[in-house]
């Protein structure tokens, strides 16, 4: 029997019966070798309750061929623990930790088997936020700095514990879960798909378009319907607008943290122009209500196309002035260059994704490797890469991506006339029963992966969400090692990861 069911990101949903059920030891041995090759990384890995136990599903991505590999296994109820994949490939750590937290599955030799997010349906209710087992290093010369859960700014909560030797950070551990709202269980509370769409919008409000696109594509695969080129084109514009807005916000935030007010205010104003463009399109500055399954409530009009074109041309010109000045600003470069280094190997080891991975030279970009929507049409995307893996690289990647995204918007809107084929959203389309559907979308932070399993009636019975932050939080912890603790803020901003997207 084959080890994997092989598909890709544009194929329709997969019948659960077609997914192989393999022997865990054989899978472990396969992955132990396979994952040494950087072309592979784990997209999702979760367990779900079935009769008499658990069935585990794993989705692997092959960046070289664009293939998506799906497999599953059902361990013997009476078996001993499973050999930990994290012990050989660290990128599995958040997934094994989640399975351990939810179902109590022990993973032998897992180096860091700690709770992931203290979800309400965790197995061990005696394990709480307050009892998180922080790593401790003994030593008279060391001290701990505890930050959070409430931070100094208007920002989401999370607990950060630094172990420092003087001003130098030896170790940072990030304990999350404060933001847990029960996204995955609320997703399947009832079959109201408008409600599911709105929950997708709230997974991470700064990635509303990204996560809702992931939800919509997943549903469309289950419905077995093609949404047409025009809607795909408009969704590309929407998600690139979101990327531009957030990269602008981060450029400004990085400038704020080193007291560089000129860039800060310039970027604040440019972000306002960008999100107000989205607001003029759909009524919401974050693009909530813009993405809907199987259709749209806001097909672009002549006037809106013109607004987007004009505003983006303006943003491009003004932002490029900021970008060029940043590249010459010695005081800024002195802070950002060679600070918070994460090497390409390290990024690959932890399974890093998105523009922070690209800043370390790791070519992870679903728009190029596993395109869907308009990216999979006559569109070619070349990811922007940097090799230094420092704060400056993460900023420079963002700056170049803003210009690239604006160019993409101009490219796909050139000669575009308001569509006559975009339909109203459909919240009642019948979905393929007993199927697994996944979606992979490159949000502004990186790889978003949603997975759903349907029951006999075609209702969504299991919903799993992965925000790119799940991979990348460990990257931040690694970046600040051996840096001065005062450089933590710029490192944090250079990653700008989601708390709610992680905690769900």
């Amino acid at each position, binding site marked *: 029997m084959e080890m994997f069911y092989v598909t890709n990101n544009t194929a329709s949903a997969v019948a659960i019966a077609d997914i192989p059920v393999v022997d865990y030891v054989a899978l472990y041995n396969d992955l132990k070798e396979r994952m040494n090759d950087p072309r592979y990384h784990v997209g999702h890995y979760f367990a779900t309750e079935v009769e008499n136990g658990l069935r585990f599903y794993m989705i692997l991505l092959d960046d070289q061929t664009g293939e998506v590999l799906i497999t599953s296994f059902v361990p013997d109820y009476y078996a001993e623990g499973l050999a930990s994949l994290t012990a050989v490939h660290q990128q599995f750590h958040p997934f094994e930790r989640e399975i351990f937290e939810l179902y109590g599955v022990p993973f032998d030799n897992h180096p860091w088997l700690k709770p992931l997010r*203290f979800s*309400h349906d965790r197995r061990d209710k005696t394990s709480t*936020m*307050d009892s998180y087992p922080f790593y401790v290093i003994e030593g008279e010369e060391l001290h701990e700095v505890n930050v959070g*859960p*409430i931070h*100094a*700014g*208007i*920002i*989401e*909560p999370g607990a950060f514990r630094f172990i420092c030797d003087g001003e130098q950070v030896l170790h940072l551990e990030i304990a999350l*879960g*404060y*933001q*847990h*709202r*029960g996204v995955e*269980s*609320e997703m399947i*509370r009832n079959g*109201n798909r*408008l*409600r599911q769409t*709105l*929950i997708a919008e*709230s*997974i991470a*409000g*700064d990635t*509303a378009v990204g996560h809702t696109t992931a939800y919509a594509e997943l549903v469309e695969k289950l419905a077995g319907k093609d949404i047409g080129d025009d809607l795909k084109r408009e969704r590309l514009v929407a998600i690139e607008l979101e990327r531009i807005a957030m990269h602008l916000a981060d450029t400004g935030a990085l400038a704020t943290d080193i007291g560089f007010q*000129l860039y800060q*205010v*310039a970027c*604040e*104003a440019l972000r*306002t122009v960008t999100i107000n463009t989205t*607001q*003029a*399109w*759909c*009524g*919401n*500055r*974050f693009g*909530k*209500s813009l993405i809907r399954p199987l259709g749209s*409530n*806001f097909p672009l009009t002549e006037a809106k196309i013109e607004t987007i074109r004009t505003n983006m041309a303006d943003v491009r*010109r*003004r932002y490029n*002035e*900021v970008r*060029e*000045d940043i590249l*010459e*600003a010695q005081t800024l470069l002195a802070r950002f260059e060679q600070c918070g280094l994460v090497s390409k190997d390290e990024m690959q080891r932890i399974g890093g994704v998105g523009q922070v991975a690209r800043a370390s030279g790791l070519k992870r970009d679903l728009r190029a490797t596993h395109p869907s929507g308009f990216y999979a049409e006559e569109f070619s995307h070349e990811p922007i890469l940097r090799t230094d893996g420092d704060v400056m690289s993460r900023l420079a990647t963002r700056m170049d991506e803003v210009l690239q995204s604006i160019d993409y918007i101009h490219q796909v809107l050139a000669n575009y006339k308001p569509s006559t084929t975009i339909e109203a959203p459909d919240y009642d389309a019948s979905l393929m029963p007993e199927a697994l559907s996944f979606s992979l979308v490159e949000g502004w932070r990186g790889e978003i992966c949603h997975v759903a399993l349907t029951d006999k009636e075609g209702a969504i019975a299991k919903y799993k969400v992965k925000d790119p932050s799940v991979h990348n939080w460990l990257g931040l912890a690694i970046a600040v090692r051996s840096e001065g603790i005062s450089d933590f803020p710029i490192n944090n901003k250079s990653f700008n990861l*989601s708390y*709610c997207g992680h*905690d769900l």
Partner: protein
Amino acid sequence: MIFGKFKILHSHGWQYIPNLDNVTLTEEFRGFPLLTVTDDKSDIERAAAICPTKAITTSPLTLDMGKCLFCGECQRCAPKNIRFTNEHRLAATRREDLVVMAGQTKPCFTKDAVRPEIAKYFGQTLQLREVSAGGDASVEMELNATGNVNFDFGRYGVGFTASPRHADGLVLTGPISANMAEALDICYNSIAEPKILVVCGSEAISGGLYADSPAIDRTFLDKYHVDLWLPGAPTHPLCFIDGITKLRK
């Protein structure tokens, strides 16, 4: 190098909104809803049924802005019954004032419900501590935006402070995740009296999509008096600015 900076400044120009009271948002913005009763109830019943947060009642016809996420889907189901205007001034001092009745033409801000000491103590300056308890980061970003170069709410003496010890009040966002409930309580109690409590965003006001989730714990709101309710998903910066300004007058 210095020329580059002049170029940025020149392109940047003047960005602040001179009069924050005098802004009309884009037509697409969904703010205060107008409700109209019709004999045929079939449309509005469909709208009420699909509403993800059960914000609509059909008899009598009402829409609770504290539950509403302003997705606009009900207007598409029942265009004769519901029409969202671009009115962003949605602040209320009493929770019940957020329930919009049929025929109501503007939001209801009950000045009598404002504690008189608020104007006395916070009329000149007001520093707030924000706590996100399950917020999705969009409300938080909009609160940050109130102080940015466009809105510049700081010019009226309103800002956000890092320590609750320095704060005159707390702004709550998010449906209040159970994992955050204790930290929220500690933070609120660390603020010296007199203080205000502002609840920002529909998810904070009612729990929104997570109202029935076992992962949230809303007992905080049963314990303390709320001075200002600000609906929205997220709350628009101008809605926050308008509400706080009215509260301090």
